[in-house]
């Protein structure tokens, strides 16, 4: 099916196709126009759509994300690029307290069809202010959706869906994955539904739920050991509880694999929901494999261990399926020296 594109290219193609389809779609952010974006995702869009629709901004995230809210409320469909997700910290009010609530507090008079694209993720040595996932910042905010693609197809399919969505969507792009290639069904048929996950590996012993980078980790871990059903959540808010419940009701075991810290992760949400819905039907305690509750270390050897590794996932899942007993996080069992 389709073309093989890098995730970066899939994102660019999605932007391009939506901009071509709808003159109200505009792109704005720091160095997105002339320079083609710090991660080169928006490269070429300026030439094609001109400076009214592809807009370089000053370093002022509250200013331009806030402006996007006003533009979205008056008819445009802005796609805002935030270079690193952490920078939403300086524009948090505009997203959480303004964009997410304007539809409700105007009883539907005004909406906010805006996409906030931001790079996320560790692994590249950017240090503790440029490497987080931070999906937790958005979870308790009714009115906001959160997508995180795990491959080129979902980068394309979800980004087009996000742009068409009539509400604010936070779109998390893993910076370590921009170069990854995958098949993409371009065009309308490739557009995905927000809120739907997908089973990306079938299996029978355990359901392993990942998102973004951890989907690939889980898939690789599934190569050996117990029979793992791997689910790519794709959308973190709202997450596809039906898909997960259906799978876990078959496999009887649940493992979530997250790049973020143990506390405040989406894994707790999934585990708590499954615990309530499938009480008494689980063969084993649900297991959350996450990063530890620490700021992301810079040094390579540490950052490598910060992220869940394929080996760790394989080992912990095997242990869970073998023992059906609680598996502790590695930092509680490993001797730290």
């Amino acid at each position: 099916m389709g073309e093989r594109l890098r995730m970066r290219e899939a994102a660019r193609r999605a932007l391009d196709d939506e901009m071509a389809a709808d003159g109200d779609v505009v792109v704005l952010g720091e160095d997105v126009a002339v320079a083609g974006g710090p991660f080169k995702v928006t490269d070429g869009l300026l030439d094609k759509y001109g400076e009214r629709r592809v807009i370089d901004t000053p370093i002022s995230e509250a200013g331009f994300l806030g402006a996007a809210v006003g533009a979205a409320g008056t008819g445009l469909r802005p796609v805002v690029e935030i270079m690193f997700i952490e920078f939403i910290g300086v524009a948090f009010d505009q997203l959480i307290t303004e964009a997410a609530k304007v539809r409700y507090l105007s009883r539907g008079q005004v909406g906010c069809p805006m996409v906030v694209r931001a790079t996320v993720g560790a692994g590249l040595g950017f240090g503790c202010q440029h490497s987080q996932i931070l999906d937790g910042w958005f979870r308790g905010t009714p009115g906001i959706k959160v997508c995180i693609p795990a491959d080129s197809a979902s980068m394309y399919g979800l980004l087009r869906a996000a742009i068409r969505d009539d509400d604010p969507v936070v779109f998390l792009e893993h910076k370590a994955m921009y170069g990854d290639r995958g098949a993409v069904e371009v065009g309308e048929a490739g557009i995905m539904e927000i809120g739907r996950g997908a089973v990306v590996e079938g299996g029978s012993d355990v359901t392993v739920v990942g998102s973004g980078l951890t989907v690939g980790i889980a898939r690789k871990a599934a190569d050996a050991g117990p029979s793992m059903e791997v689910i790519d959540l794709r959308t973190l808010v709202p997450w596809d509880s039906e898909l997960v419940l259906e799978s876990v009701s078959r496999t009887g075991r649940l493992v979530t694999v997250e790049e973020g810290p143990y506390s405040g992760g989406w894994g707790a949400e999934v585990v708590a929901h499954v615990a309530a819905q499938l009480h008494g039907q689980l063969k084993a305690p649900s297991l959350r494999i996450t990063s530890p509750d620490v700021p992301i270390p810079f040094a390579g050897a540490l950052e490598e261990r910060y992220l869940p590794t394929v080996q760790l996932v394989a080992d912990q899942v095997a242990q869970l399926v073998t023992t059906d007993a609680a598996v502790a996080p590695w930092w509680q069992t490993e001797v730290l020296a």
Partner: protein
Amino acid sequence: MSAPSAVERRQTLHAERRELLVRGIEIRATEERIQELFNDGLVRGSTHLCIGQEAVSLGIAREARPSDLVVATYRGHGIALALGVTPVAVMGEILGRVVGCAGGNGGSMHLSDMSVGLYPTSAIVGSGIPTAAGAALTAHVRGTDDAAIAIFGDGAANIGAFHEGLNLAAIKQLPVVFVCENNLYGEYSRQNLTTAVDDIASRAASYSMPGVVVDGQDVDTVAAATAEALARARAGDGPTLLEMKTYRYRGHSRSDAATYRPDGELEQWQQRDPLAILEARLVEEGVIAADERGAIEAQVGEAVEAAAQEALASPEPRLKAMFEHIVAGDAG
């Protein structure tokens, strides 16, 4: 005869000079009535009255088009009424009734009516400044000659969103007018205690845009400055910062007795009451008779009272409303 809609009320304000005074009296009477409703325990949370500042709302509404977007604040009853929102819709919202302009979802701090260009007012100081720049961006991208107007307080001139919004608008030459409604206080703090300049308009220089100090007590001065700034915006010449010098007669909110104000300050400002200035001007112009204000007040007072009664008679929203309009698709 059914009551005029917000759009019709706006047209009247544009068409008839006398209506400026009528509307100004309506704003004050409505605010007074809201205070009573609050004192009677019927208004929940907070209210922020604009009594004393009516000329700013009137002058802006006089010049803006319904297709211009106005982004104001929690102290927004006056601009809402000036733009045309009916007293029933305003008081209904403040009472949390279905007849309110947002069906009771928003409350006193969050009035809105997109039919007359009133974007939902926000209760976060300064947050609307970038919003207005964004609405101006829409006009810019689409090539219309609409403009946006951000209205905010003197206190808001110290928050980051002010700086970022003005710089962005300046660098992109967006069609937006920034109106700082300087009523001398942010909550209980006088401007000089929080703001390192005397004239907020002087901060326009940091964005290479015109900054103009305007007499905010005189509707005509406000309207003229607004008109000029809107013309600049529509012509593609970029944003303007207008500082309207005005004063709030009441405390910041609710039952604030405003004891922090120096003796005599209120009285001094009351000598330049915006409604009195307007009344005198209209008498001079022959638009109204010398003794007409009393009659207008009586008539408006009745209408406001009727509106209050209608709002009070309106039901609270049904439970289902809590789950509507959170995202598109779950519409009511």
